[in-house]
């Protein structure tokens, strides 16, 4: 009987979940900046395969996550999209000072679903579009980098009225992906897997490097799984994933 077999399988699975994995396996809760979503998911899978520990990921803009951390959110690790907030977390006593390091350096890309729209900085100067999406520059480092880039090219004031802001870089991507904004500044990591559309990798000299820092929060100081995750994040295996998603890593800068 098919039904009986699948029922048995379901109960078996349930039992396995309830019993947990290997006895030593733990769990750690991680706050992850939205731009790192795909890479973090893959790293968490690899982490689980290697150590048996489970990384539970929560995504949001760095600003939103940091506010939650200051209000005693149960996160044990903070993977920010900037260097400033992990530093602040240490200064304000939420994080373990010596644990802070740069896990990735983000790349900014101007991206459109329209295969012909984005050709380079000329696209910004010509301004032949109605809406350009960026992430909220106050809360999301990729938004700040987008503003810096436009200022460096001297096109910021002319584009300003056409800007729309996503509350995180994920939402910014959504605005462009649904076609509501013709183009926008997103993280290279978000579009690295797709061939469609057109893009311009913004040259690094136009914006300050987006150093993305990780830090161990005091809530996770005693958790073995949290320490293991940070160690894993520096391993060649994780670095390969990080690079594949379009980031440079700490030692390359």
């Amino acid at each position, binding site marked *: 009987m098919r039904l009986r077999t699948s029922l048995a399988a379901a109960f078996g699975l349930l039992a396995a979940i309830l019993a947990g994995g290997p006895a030593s396996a733990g769990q750690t809760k991680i706050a992850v900046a939205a731009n790192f979503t795909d890479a973090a998911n893959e790293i968490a899978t690899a982490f689980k395969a290697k150590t048996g520990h489970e990384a539970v990921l929560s995504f949001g*803009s760095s*600003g*939103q996550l*940091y*506010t939650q951390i*200051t209000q005693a959110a149960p996160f044990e690790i903070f993977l920010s999209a900037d260097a400033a907030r992990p530093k602040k977390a240490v200064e304000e006593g939420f994080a373990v000072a010596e644990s802070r390091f740069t896990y990735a350096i983000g790349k900014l890309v101007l991206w459109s679903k329209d295969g012909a729209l984005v050709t380079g900085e000329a696209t910004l100067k010509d301004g032949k579009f*109605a*809406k350009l*999406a960026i992430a*909220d520059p*106050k*809360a999301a480092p990729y938004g700040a980098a987008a503003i810096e880039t436009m200022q460096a090219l001297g096109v910021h004031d002319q584009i300003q009225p056409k*800007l*729309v*802001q*996503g*509350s995180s870089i994920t*939402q910014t991507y*959504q*605005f462009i992906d*649904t*076609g*509501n*904004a*013709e183009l926008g500044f997103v993280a290279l990591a978000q579009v690295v897997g797709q061939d469609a559309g057109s893009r311009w990798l913004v040259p690094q000299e136009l914006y300050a490097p987006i150093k993305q820092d990780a830090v161990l929060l005091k809530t996770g100081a005693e958790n073995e799984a949290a320490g293991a995750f940070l160690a894993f994040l520096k391993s060649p295996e994780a670095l390969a994933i990080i690079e594949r998603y379009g980031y440079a890593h700490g030692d390359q800068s």
Partner: protein
Amino acid sequence: MGALAPEIWVAVRLTIELAALTTLLLLVLGTPLAWWLARSGAWWKELVAAVVALPLVLPPTVLGFYLLVALGPSGPGGLIAGFWGERTLAFTFEGLVIGSVLYSMPFVVQPIRNAFEAVGERPLEVAATLRASPARAFWTVAVPLARPGFLTAAVLGFAHTVGEFGVVLMIGGNIPGETKVLSVAIYDYVELMQWREANILAGGMVVFALTVILAMTMIERRMARPGA
């Protein structure tokens, strides 16, 4: 209060404009709908009522997601926006009005429908025997008798639009003076840890909500009094 940034007042004004326009549209659109729901014998009318009531149950993200697609260049919104040379209705005040009308609809239609149902057949039959045309009976009998329902509907529709957040966040694009309403401004302040501004605005919202609820209770009391 003088030290408050002008952008806060822009958000306050925008929110009031959005809520007022939405309420007005909802009263215009919702009244015939509520009338039909109250009096029709069609078997599928409860299905229509259920569709109207959907935003009560659905998370705003569902509506926000559908709207983002529908307002965009590949949906009807993009078609409409094309008339004045735009590509999308998202990120516009008009887009927010459309979203708010859908989102607040049950709060307006339901009280009006209840009020019409409470009026019942009898007064209208009496009006008919006095040779009032159906239209005249509607305006001079049904609407005045249903007045408490209209008041409740207007207050609730307005208040609920002011309190809207998820839909606006998803289709608004956070443009000051265009789509950055109060709830989104509060979200921003919290995210940036500007507690002072967040506190002032959030406190204002609490006072507003309390006033609305009290006003509602008063309206209902007064209307329930015989002879009112």
